[in-house]
């Protein structure tokens, strides 16, 4: 079900945590069933995105309230798990079919055609989960340069013909 995968990816983008995204998706489904009479076929996708976003925000507020009570513990867990979270999120996208092996290989090939310093910025940001500020500091570069390299690289990866065809396939289903 393509919509389910897109909605879960959307929730993961907002919540940045697989478990929270799963939780928000369940709540969203219940809310959508309850409010089904207000849905219109023409705007159904946008309507579902809105419900999902509302549920995600409610969940984030609950998390923030809990986090203030358990601040030290939450920070400890977050710092220890950030790299594993990146892998877990990516694996979930793979399970949902939003990314597949061909797309991953296409990205790998595209990345190899990028200059090494661009590859380094991408790897540090997307895989090692460093912030742009940390990357700039460690690579001794201005933050603006790092951001520009990242934007150019991402466009390059997005415009890769194999990735585009994969995206088109997804939207056709």
């Amino acid at each position, binding site marked *: 079900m393509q919509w389910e995968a*897109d909605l879960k*990816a*959307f929730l*993961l*983008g*907002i919540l*940045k945590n697989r478990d929270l995204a799963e939780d928000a998706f369940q709540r969203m489904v219940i809310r959508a069933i309850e409010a089904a009479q207000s849905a219109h076929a023409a705007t159904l*996708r*946008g309507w579902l*995105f*809105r419900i999902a*976003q509302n549920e995600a*925000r409610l969940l984030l507020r609950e998390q923030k309230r809990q986090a203030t009570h358990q601040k030290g513990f939450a920070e400890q867990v977050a710092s220890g798990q950030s790299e594993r979270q*990146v*892998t877990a*999120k*990516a*694996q*979930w*996208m*793979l399970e949902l079919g*939003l*990314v597949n092996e061909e*797309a*991953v*290989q296409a*990205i*790998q090939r595209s*990345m190899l*055609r*990028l*200059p090494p310093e*661009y590859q380094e910025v*991408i*790897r540090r*940001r*997307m*895989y090692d989960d460093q*912030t*742009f500020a940390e990357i700039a500091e460690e690579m001794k570069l201005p933050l603006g340069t790092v951001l*520009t390299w990242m*934007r*150019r690289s*991402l*466009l*390059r*990866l*997005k*415009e*890769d*013909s*194999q*990735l585009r065809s994969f*995206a088109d396939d997804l939207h056709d289903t």
Partner: protein
Amino acid sequence: MNNLSDDNLHEAPLIDGAQWLALQFVLGELTEEQSEQFQLAMMEDVSLCEAVVEATRLTAGISLACGSESVASSPVSLATLPASTVEPVRPAFSRTIVLGAIIAMAMTVLAVVTLQNSPESALSVAADDATATADALAMLLKNDTSTYANNDFDEWSVSEDSISSLVAPEWLLTAVDLDAAFESGDLPVVNPDDESGIY
């Protein structure tokens, strides 16, 4: 497929503003205020929601690509793997020596097994077994004679009970009586041709 070199990549256009914003939002690079504004904008514009989906997908694809690439090729990542999964690279010469040693060991084991299964060894095994059995029997006879006697007695008692339960035929008792009388001399000598004593 367009292949950008280093030179023209530095002049290449940047990713679309909304997509870039969505990517920064997904990566958690926006400040709390910027993030809030972006979410409010998403409420009004579905295309921003789609951009978030696309950014999530792209980041997942890139992190998977980086992960599999680093595991497959990077020596740095290889060093971080557990020792059991990293096989040390051996030169061809040492591999030949190891192979030769394995073959020699296998042949030795085979020879030992073959000798153990030969007829002489089978006889010696049988002799050992026989000796052990004889020793065990001797030990039993030496130590457990009383037990055996008791056992014999029990068997005898059982058989006597069995005999006493039988009824002896009349002719057998008569024959035994006659035999006893003959041995004690109470019986007169009878000529075999004389049949008068019988009837």
